């Protein structure tokens, strides 16, 4: 978004408010190391099984919290591995089996569907995934947020005062991410955050009327995603 744009912020319970972007600044890049030679992320024994996580729960990113009201952060995550010796980026080993688990800024694991079910392909127990879907069952595939590519807005998170997101990396491969045994995925793994931060202004009464009638274009962002249904089959 640019200065002068209007944004409609949608709360988790459906409450909405319009704001005008008063100031904008790039956040550049901030990187966190998730796996290296000394601290690998273990290999899943069976690739179809639940993945191995870098931490039991997503780690809060306290540095991403706006510390005042009327400030908004648009956050975009990306992943890259580097060679442990040369530091050069590794291009070809970021697969969709490596995924990012994310807590929304409200500190609830997000992404996924309403239902969590057992899925068996071909009627074979070896191809049974015990927990597919569910309200926290989605993860961000690393290959679609590769640092080498143009970054996309599909997995953007929006953060306001008082909240912070959390992240960890999951591994559905039978190879370590990082680790001490040389192998195709034994690199240093980084999770990067980029994005922009905004100062929000309040629209005038006339602007508000026209926004409600859709006479002025605006961007709508949902904080924390859609409401969760607690009942699961």
């Amino acid at each position, binding site marked *: 978004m640019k200065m002068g744009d209007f944004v409609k912020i949608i709360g988790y319970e459906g409450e909405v408010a319009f704001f005008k972007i008063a100031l904008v600044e790039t956040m550049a890049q901030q990187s966190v190391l998730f796996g290296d030679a000394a601290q690998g992320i273990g290999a899943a024994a069976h690739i179809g099984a639940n993945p191995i996580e870098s931490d039991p729960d997503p780690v809060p990113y306290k540095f991403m919290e706006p510390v005042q009201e009327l400030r908004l952060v648009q956050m975009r995550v990306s992943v890259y591995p580097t060679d442990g010796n040369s530091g050069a980026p590794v291009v070809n080993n970021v*697969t*969709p089996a490596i995924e990012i688990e994310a807590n929304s800024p409200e500190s609830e694991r997000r992404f996924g*569907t*309403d239902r969590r079910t057992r899925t068996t392909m071909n009627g074979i127990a070896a191809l049974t995934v015990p927990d597919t879907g569910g309200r926290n069952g989605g993860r961000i595939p690393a290959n*679609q947020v590769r640092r080498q590519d143009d970054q996309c807005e599909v997995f953007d998170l929006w953060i306001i005062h008082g909240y912070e997101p959390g992240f960890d990396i999951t591994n559905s*491969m039978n190879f370590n991410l990082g680790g001490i045994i040389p192998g195709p995925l034994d690199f240093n793994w980084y999770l990067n955050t980029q994005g922009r931060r905004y100062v929000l202004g309040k629209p005038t009464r006339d602007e508000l009327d026209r926004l409600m009638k859709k006479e002025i274009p605006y961007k709508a962002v949902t904080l924390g995603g859609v409401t969760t249904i607690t009942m699961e089959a």
Partner: protein
Amino acid sequence: MAVYDRAAEYLQPGDYVMFSSQYGKPIWLFIEADEALGQMKVQMTDVGVSLAGRAARAGAGSPVPPFTFIDAEPVRMDFLEPRREDRLYQIRPSVFAIDELTGHLIDEDVIPPLLMLEWDYPDGTRQGGSDRLATITINNIPNPDIGGPQGGRIPVNEIYNRSDLSPLYDIFVFFLTAPAFRLINWTRGVVGAAGDEGLQFLWFLTFQGRKYIFRRATAEEEEKLINRELPYRSLPSPGGVPDTLLRRD
């Protein structure tokens, strides 16, 4: 390699969409909130669970062997069902394969278009083909049962899980419905399994997309939408277009 906008065709809060069943009156919906689904995946083959390749054609008069299937019927993905009436999923299916030995993502250039995904629409019907089913014989090679209302399948090389997924096969899922999928193989290579043939990888079916909360458009909004005073996007019918009486040539 085709390049797509990764956010292409996703709806946004504030959008109006028109939805119609196969035969029904259209209704207009207003998208109130959205959220990414992330990625969910199921594994379709393993080193111990493979999908055979089709046999070689025996002679000029013999029919082309049919597809081989990984499942007898498409497997219903129950976790893709929204649990309330005011919720809508936009599902973007994709497929990827990894090398069991190296852990590498298999390059999409080696994925044959004859490896395909067969799917049931969320309302439970198989769709994706044409109106007519026919045997096509070319150069003495009979190709039985081409086309028909259930004769279309998604070539996996078009939905390979690279950075940019195609929105061409997006599926919209409403309350009480869920799509189903199975992998079919018309190549001569084994898919999955140990060995030295070209398609012996671990194959995954993945789902990405967005979920939405919507409300019905108000009468005032609907009047403006009908008069095209407000822009809207139409969603594909969950059951496709109506079938005609099956005609076989």
